[in-house]
């Protein structure tokens, strides 16, 4: 892979030298190391991230590089396992001597490997994993997150839920930390916003193991619990299976409000197409039609041109991380790791998702959270969001003292 990328890079570089606007090729290249799930069940997330990263790097190299230096990418496969991800980090840091680490899909993996940054003394920008803990309980000096975290996404869900008439809520989620945390945070936030809501007890909520393919027992359970609102934190293949089976069983008949925290992920919408029911509240970490700022339009169109698909949030995450690194390097006028860490703290940057500030205290990006109702639109092959609700960062991000982050 690495060689292939190098080869492509060399060809591209040669082409550009011949074409005219020469890249300032002085100095060593800037090395960025990416760790995503490239194989197995969740390989689709790694693939998206890689597309986003390559898009950003090509754009940067086509202009002036970073501080006049070319950018080189190294991709490693985490396979979704913490020990493999740790090994990938070691390889990138000790063997390839990368300047910055970018990546991580699984929250469990992220939480486990984040402490290693203290030893590797290399900045890490997380672009997908959403556990609040990496910018909370286990936060550290070198770890940043550019993407929406669980708390931000669920806070937005609670805001929407508080506007609905639903009073009794339950959940369907994956049976691991993400699902349980989504439910906990949702209960906490919604209770604050609307004290008279009720949440169903443990025997009326459903958590399905991640390997589940038949969701019918869970669907039955929730339907018979007769809630007024359901928070669904399933994602990826699980969500696709759930939505199909649930619509056949009449789950989306409008008897209750449905909020899907990751329902607007494009990989889900592309797989389901018109099987995705209309009028459901769905959230995502980035929505390609979320705004019409020049940055977003340029990103959306470049991505579509190159990959004939609309960008997923994971592609956006990797793209954003590369851009953030560039901005930090330019702010610091250096690629020194400590300097980058300093520069990333409080960095303000225009990203396709909107204007984002990386909070200095916990290294979480203050990024808007996007939700919307699913709707058909003849212009797009997939369901789109209409209306779109964009919640500004300050409304959904927990204050620093609530994150549990103690940076030293």
């Amino acid at each position, binding site marked *: 892979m690495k060689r292939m990328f190098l080869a492509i890079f060399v060809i591209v570089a040669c082409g550009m030298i011949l074409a005219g606007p020469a890249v300032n090729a002085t100095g060593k290249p800037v090395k960025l190391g990416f760790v995503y799930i490239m194989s197995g069940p969740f390989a689709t997330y790694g693939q998206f991230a890689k597309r986003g990263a390559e898009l950003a790097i090509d754009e940067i190299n086509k202009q002036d590089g970073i501080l006049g230096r070319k950018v080189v990418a190294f991709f490693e496969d985490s396979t979704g396992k913490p020990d493999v991800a740790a090994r990938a980090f070691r390889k990138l840091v000790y063997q390839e001597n990368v300047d910055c680490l970018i990546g991580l899909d699984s929250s469990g993996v992220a939480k486990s490997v984040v402490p290693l940054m203290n030893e590797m003394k290399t900045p890490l920008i997380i672009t997908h994993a959403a556990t609040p803990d990496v910018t909370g309980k286990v936060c550290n000096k070198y770890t940043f997150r550019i993407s929406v975290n669980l708390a931000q996404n669920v806070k937005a869900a609670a805001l929407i839920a508080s506007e609905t008439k639903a009073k009794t809520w339950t959940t369907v989620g994956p049976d691991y930390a993400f699902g349980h945390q989504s439910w906990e945070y949702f209960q906490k936030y919604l209770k604050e916003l609307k004290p008279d809501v009720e949440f169903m007890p443990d025997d009326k909520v459903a958590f399905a193991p991640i390997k589940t393919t038949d969701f019918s*027992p869970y669907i039955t359970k929730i339907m018979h619990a007769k809630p007024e609102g359901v928070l669904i934190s399933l994602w990826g293949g699980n969500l696709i299976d759930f939505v199909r089976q649930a619509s056949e069983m009449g789950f989306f008949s409008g008897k209750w409000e449905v909020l899907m925290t990751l329902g607007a992920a494009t990989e889900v919408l592309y797989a389901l197409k018109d099987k995705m029911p209309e009028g459901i509240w769905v959230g995502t970490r980035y929505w390609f039609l979320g705004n019409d700022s020049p940055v977003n339009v340029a990103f959306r169109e470049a991505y579509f041109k190159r990959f004939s698909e609309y960008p997923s949030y994971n592609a956006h995450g990797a793209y954003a991380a590369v851009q953030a690194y560039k901005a930090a390097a330019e702010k610091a006028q250096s690629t020194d790791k400590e300097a980058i860490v300093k520069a990333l703290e409080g960095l303000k940057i225009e990203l396709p998702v909107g204007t984002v500030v990386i909070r200095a205290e916990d290294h979480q990006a203050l990024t808007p959270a996007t939700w919307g109702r699913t709707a058909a639109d003849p212009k797009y092959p997939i369901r789109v969001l209409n209306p779109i609700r964009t919640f500004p960062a300050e409304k959904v991000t927990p204050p620093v003292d609530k994150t549990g982050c103690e940076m030293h």
Partner: protein
Amino acid sequence: MDTFAINLLNGLCWGMLLFLISVGLTTVFGVMGVLNFAHGSLFMLGAYVAMQIMEWIPNFWIGLIIGPVVVAGLGIFIEVFLLRPVYRRDVTFQLLLTFAVLLVLDDAVRLIWGPAYHIVDPPPLLSGTISFFDQSYPLYRLFLLCFGPVVGLSLWFFFQKTRWGKVIRAAALDREMAEGVGIQVPRLFTLVFALGTWLAALGGALSAPYQSIGPSLGEKIIIESFIVVVVGGLGSFPGAFIGAIALGLLESFGTMFAGRVQMALPYLLLIVVLLFRPRGIFGKEV
């Protein structure tokens, strides 16, 4: 009461799908003594190939018929070139070899069809729902519920009543004797493996309108089908049937009462059965 009925239905449907997957595994083990780790991957391949054919020729039934046959062809290749040399070796070598096949197939599927999820629609005839205790229930699931026993019974008929079935059973009992009376055991084994593969792929093709197709389909199912086969008794059809239904019901009712323990239920079933019936429910005690 209606919760109970719906859960019963859910469990039976899932059990039937598990049965379709496991029955090939148990056939191959019963006759050839090979535990096929790649069985789940062949199941997955069945789903993908059927999907591909349905894309070319938009008819569910054609995909259902041709897809498994194509995969069975691959099964013949695997048996002749890979398994045949290791029959005399320890069972662990067969496990490792089929594990290698699993690695190749799982990645090959991703290379061919990409890592994204795919879905397949049920045929128009079966795409509706019927009402059930004021809840709608998909027709396709009920179709599966009927199809499982049909497959089980035809296999049982094949093995018990037809000449070919009897020959295969004889070869399974005593290979040397079968060779002595002029049965070409290697060719027979190829056939049986092709049958097992066909069954796996048929299960995959049938599951396509039921669950999304992705590169992890095989991995998700293989351990559960091992559990079904061992719980039922290795090589036993009725065993695979009972084991699959038991697991299906356990998982569907488990969501109602088990809470946190739910993830462990299949393994709990496995342990309890093996502790009290060391050879599985229908296994022959030695």
